[in-house]
C-alpha cells in the first residue's frame, strides 16, 4: 500500500510542479494561450492562476496551435 501512496503522491507532486511553472508562464505570456487576454486587465491573470496550474494538460496544446497558426 505504501508504494501505491508514494507513486500517487509523487505523480501529484510532479503534476503540481509543472502546473505552477506553466502558471507562471501564463502570468507573463497569457495572450499566447488566449488572445483575448491581451485586452484583459493584468489582475485577472492572478485570479486565473490556480485554475491554469490545475488544468495545464488541457491548455498547453494551445501554445503549439498558436505557433503554427
Amino acid at each position, binding site marked *: *500500500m*505504501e508504494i501505491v*501512496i508514494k507513486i500517487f*503522491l509523487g505523480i501529484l507532486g510532479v503534476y503540481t510542479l509543472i502546473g505552477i511553472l506553466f502558471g507562471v508562464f501564463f502570468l507573463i505570456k497569457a495572450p499566447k*494561450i*488566449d488572445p*483575448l*487576454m491581451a*485586452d*484583459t*486587465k493584468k*489582475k*485577472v491573470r492572478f*485570479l*486565473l492562476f*490556480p*485554475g491554469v*496550474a*490545475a*488544468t495545464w494538460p*488541457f*491548455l498547453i496544446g*494551445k501554445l503549439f496551435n498558436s505557433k503554427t497558426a
Partner: protein
Amino acid sequence: MGLNYQLVLWNNHKKTYDKLIVLGMLLYIILFAVVTLVFNSETSIETLVIRAFGSLAIIMLHIILVIGPLARLNSAFLPILYNRRHLGVSMFIAAFIHGGFSMFQFHALGDVNPIYSIFISNMDYGSLTDFPFQVLGFLALLILFVMASTSHDFFLGNLSAKTWKRLHMMVYAAYALIIAHVFLGAFQQETSPFTIGILVFGFILVSSLHLITAFKEGHIDTAKTEEKEGWLKVCDISEIEEDRAKIFTVEKERIAIFKYDGKLSAIHNVCKHQGGPLGEGKIIDGCITCPWHGYQYLPANGQSPPPFTEKVATYELKLDGKTVYINPKAFEEGTEVNPCKI
C-alpha cells in the same frame, strides 16, 4: 459573450447575493460556535473550527446540488442558480479552512510532509470502522479545488465546454467521497448526530429532486408530435405563456418555441455559453434571455445582439387555427426566419 474577460462578472444583484452568502456563512459559524460551547464547553477551539467549517461546507454543497433541479421545477429559484458559481467558490473556501485546519492540527507537527502524513498515519485501508477517512476528504478537496479554480468563463472557452462540463460533473464524485469521509469518520470521532442527520436528510433530498427532474425532462422528450406534410404538430398556442417558451424534442433536438408581441419564434434550446436551457428563460427587452447566466438572443434570427457574436439554429413555424406546427429541419445558426403572426 464579452470581448475580453472581467475579473468577476458582478452586477448589483450579484453583489447583493454575495453579501448574503458571506453573511449567511458568518452567521452559521457564530451560531455553531455558540451552540457547541453551550452544550459542550470543553470543546477545543481547533475542534470547533474543524467541525464548524466542515459542516458549513457540506450544507453549502447540498444547496449547490439542489439548486439545479429546483430551478427547473420552479423558476423562483433561478436567481440562486445564477449565483451558483460564487456559492461554489465560497463552499470550497469553507472546505479548505476545514481541511487545512485538520491538516495543521493532526499532521503538521511531525517531521513528515503533512499530505503524506494524511495518507500513512493510519494504514487500515482494509478496515471499515477504522478506515483513514481523512484521505477521502483530501481527494474531495482536490476535486473541489479544480472546480473552484476553473469557475471563471476563461476556462469555459479554453478548456472547451465539453471538458469543462465533465470537470464540473465531478462534483458528484466529490459528494460521494465526502459522504464516505463523514460516515467513516463517524466511527472514529464523536461526530454529532446533527451532522449525520444533515447528511441522511440531504442525500434523500438531493437524489429525489434529481429523480423528479429527470422524470419531468423525460416527459418533455415524449411530447406528442404528429406529422402533416413534413410539418410536425407541436401544441396549441394557449399552452405557451406570453414572453415565455415551451420546449419540445423534435427529431432528437430540443427546440424552444417562444410567444411574444403576438408572434411565435422557434430556436434551438441550447445556449452557446454553457448549454443552458434557453426555453426556460424569458424574453427580456425583446431578447430571449438564458436563465443560467443571461446571454441574449434575438428570437427572429437566433443571434446575440451586436457586438456579441453567438448564434443558435432557428426553425420555421406555421399556424393552422390555434395549432402550432414546426418544420423539423433546422436552419443554419443565426438564419433570419419571419416570426409566425398569431
